[in-house]
């Protein structure tokens, strides 16, 4: 799938601004971003549900820019699920083959196969309103697949579901898509969902593509501050560069010194540093050590698989640390004084953003 220079405006809002994207056959790509960033609009333009103002769209080798949705040969999963309430579940799933004039017997078999693959077992008289949230999502997926699409478009497919159903069903989505060797574009605002099942991620903000890469690349080495903030919690520090060599930078953060891997900064330059909570190492404060990077544990919270700690630093910074839950034994406690270190190579540095730090980090 290829999209070149796509733009779309609604009255006074520019939903899409010159968006271009390439996708390979069989890839599972997620487009993520905050509400209003244009990801749904992009998907709808690719589907032909909305008509773009300018740009071209290719599915496979065909140019589909001006084709109606029924001629683009895709499968679309809607956020509202949108199973036809007046037809049974089986009639829903069989709708695609039926409207294309496929004969009844073979399409019934085909539908049966797909239902089995999706692990969905329903009677012939079951109607959509009798299904649970997860089951209706699977039915919608089966219906889209039964239409034998070249490209699968998923618009917040898990949005209407409970958190734990969402977390389990997303792997099913990927399994089915990969088993059928389909190409899929999955739109969501949930970054964990996207990271866990995609081959590649596309990050969007305010109608533009911010960054593209594999989940691991974007999580560990995001090129933009917004990406760093969007994909997971991070500690952000404003710093001034004191010294910079070919591979190491020394910076001053609220009066304290920090060394980290990096290059290319000028002395005195204002930068932003980012460090994920899981890269923060806490040790009980040692009286002979330096007085820098010392703070008090303000709050300690068991999140489940992690323990989250809020540390008030002596230089007025707040640092969030997160460690995997290996038992609370040996963990620093509330009120304790600790020293903070960052694991090797975990500090990311960015030039000061042009629109200001708050605007860059804004999640809505």
């Amino acid at each position: 799938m290829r999209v070149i220079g796509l733009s779309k405006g609604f009255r006074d809002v520019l939903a899409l601004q010159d968006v271009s994207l390439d996708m390979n056959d069989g890839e599972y790509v997620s487009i993520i971003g905050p509400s209003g960033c244009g990801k749904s609009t992009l998907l709808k333009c690719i589907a032909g549900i909305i008509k773009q103002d300018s740009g071209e769209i290719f599915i496979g080798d065909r140019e589909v820019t001006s084709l109606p949705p029924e001629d683009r040969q895709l499968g679309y999963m809607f956020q509202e699920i949108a199973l036809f309430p007046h037809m049974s579940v089986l009639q829903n799933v069989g709708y695609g083959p039926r409207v294309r004039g496929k004969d009844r017997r073979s399409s019934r078999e085909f539908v049966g196969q797909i239902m089995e693959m999706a692990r969905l077992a329903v009677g012939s008289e079951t109607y959509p309103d009798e299904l649970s949230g997860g089951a209706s999502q699977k039915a919608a997926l089966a219906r889209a697949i039964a239409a034998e699409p070249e490209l699968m478009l998923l618009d917040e497919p898990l949005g209407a579901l409970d958190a734990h159903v969402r977390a389990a069903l997303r792997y099913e989505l990927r399994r089915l898509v990969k088993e059928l060797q389909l190409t899929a574009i999955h739109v969501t605002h949930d970054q964990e969902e996207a990271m866990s099942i995609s081959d590649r991620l596309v990050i969007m903000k305010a109608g533009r593509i911010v960054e593209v890469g594999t989940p691991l690349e974007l999580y560990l080495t995001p090129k933009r501050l917004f990406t760093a903030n969007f994909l997971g919690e991070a500690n952000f520090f404003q710093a001034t560069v004191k010294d910079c060599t070919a591979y190491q930078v020394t910076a001053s953060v609220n009066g304290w010194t920090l060394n980290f891997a990096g290059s290319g900064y000028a002395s005195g330059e204002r930068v932003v540093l980012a460090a994920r909570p899981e890269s923060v190492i806490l040790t009980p404060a040692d009286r002979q050590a330096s007085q820098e990077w010392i703070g008090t544990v303000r709050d300690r919270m068991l999140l489940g698989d992690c323990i989250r700690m809020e540390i008030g630093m002596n230089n007025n910074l707040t640092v969030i640390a997160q460690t995997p839950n290996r038992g609370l034994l040996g963990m620093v406690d509330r009120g304790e004084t600790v020293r903070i270190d960052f694991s090797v190579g975990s500090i990311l540095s960015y030039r000061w953003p042009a629109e200001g730090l708050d605007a860059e980090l804004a999640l809505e």
Partner: protein
Amino acid sequence: MPVRSNENGRSKDAPAGLSMIGRILLSLDSVSGSKSMRVAAYTFGILFFLTIVFVPPVFGILLGWPKILEMLAYPDLMARAWSAIAASFAIAVTVSLIDLAAALPLAWFIVRSRSAWVSTIDTLANIPFIVPTVALGYSVLTFWGGPKGIGSLFGPQFVFSPGWQMIVLLHFAFSYPVIVRVMVGALQSYKEVYETAARTLGAPAFTAARTVSLPLLKPSVVAAFLLAFARSLSETGATVMVAGVFENGPVFIRNARVAGQESPLMFVSFVLIIASSLVFIGIRMFAPRTRFPISTVWPTIERRLSSSRAIWSRNLVVFLVFVFFVIVPSLFVVLPGIDAVTDGTLQLAVSGSDIWSNYWQAVGLSYLIALLATCLNVLTGLPVSILIARARAGRLVAGILDTLVNIPIVVPSIALGVSIGIFWGGVTYISEFWLLVFAHASITYTYFVRSMIAAVESIPTELEDVARTLGARPLTVFRRLTIPLSKYSLLAGAIMAFTRSVDETGATLAVAKKLTTAPVLMVDWVRGTIPASSSAIGLGLGILVLTSFVSLLVLTIATRKM
């Protein structure tokens, strides 16, 4: 921790600086908290509904049972009566079906098309609403039957004479906008995502609309059909104008009244009331069970029907039908009106001389009755609407009331009037004027209540829940939430009731012996019972159109301000 409040968090301090009105409202608010007050308000509403709106029209006719039985002695008269009744139903069903077929595509166009013409056509589709039915009747009479109308365009062989064909043309014209309005509303609230889903699955636009949208819109289609059906069955004045010697139910009753024959009048009224109620209930019960045929698909044909050329030609045909059979006939009444300005009739009218003194009296009467009826409906209809929309007395009661509330528009208004006349006939201290007010209130009640019910139902119950937990008593919720959020529908419902009352001919014909309302007077002018020149008729009707237009303009301006 709570500041300055007593146990339930209410302010102990007498609120300082509160005006007189504020104090009254506050005490009313707390009074509304008591269950007995609320029960009283709802009971009052239901009582009014039952005693004025429902029972007299539906059951009054039974008081005339002896006279009804007299009919059995006159077989020829009976035969004529039955054929009139059959004609009513036949015309109503046919016209409504044709109207559905013709108006639905226009409604579709209005909602779905991105053309610049949409708002113009939307406004045009409202024109027949602006034109009172009596004016429409005369308009149709002169357009399809007069020398200056269709005859001048296509030749004298296309001219119709008054009779059933003209009735069909008339009913088609005035039921058309009803269907357009209902379907536009339905399409606007329809979740297009279902149709979009069908298209992404490979269905061309026509197939998607037929197999997915139409079945899901079925309740609205049935509702639109029923409204058109009821209108056709019920309309009297204009039908009388164009009927000539043909008779449908209402025309028969009117003729019987003019001839002073009580028996056939009551008989036909009785049959009409029973038959229309049964048909209405029957359709309501069986319509949900019928299914549109959606299992077969014809891919190649339907794909071709979805092409832009097919759509374009369909829209053209629909639009031509719309213009020629609805718009032009509706506006044709303007022509004789214009003559009136030039040939001196206007001065006569203004001076109030000759037939015009009666005219102005009739107009005044019409508006007074409409105003009183509407006020009664608003005051008593509000509690009943809330009772139904929020099921305050339970779902069963709400369901029953919901069905009952619809009956007055289903029953032909002239039959309703006859029944009301008989019911209150024994009660001597009700003057004819108040009889008319009650009859009009009965007929227009449904318009207001349905509008209010729809509005209240569209207010999410969470808003009320939150308001209550924030401490708002029922009257506060009503004052600060329900009314502001439904004021458009309240005003729209009131104006619909008002214009319907001004329009009403059937019930007036049945009930009034001495008083005449404006539209009834117009019928007399047109049928020649009272001689009047064509330009006088044109002017008289034109003034009615103008006043109707003004009230609808008021609605548009008021709602735009909201």
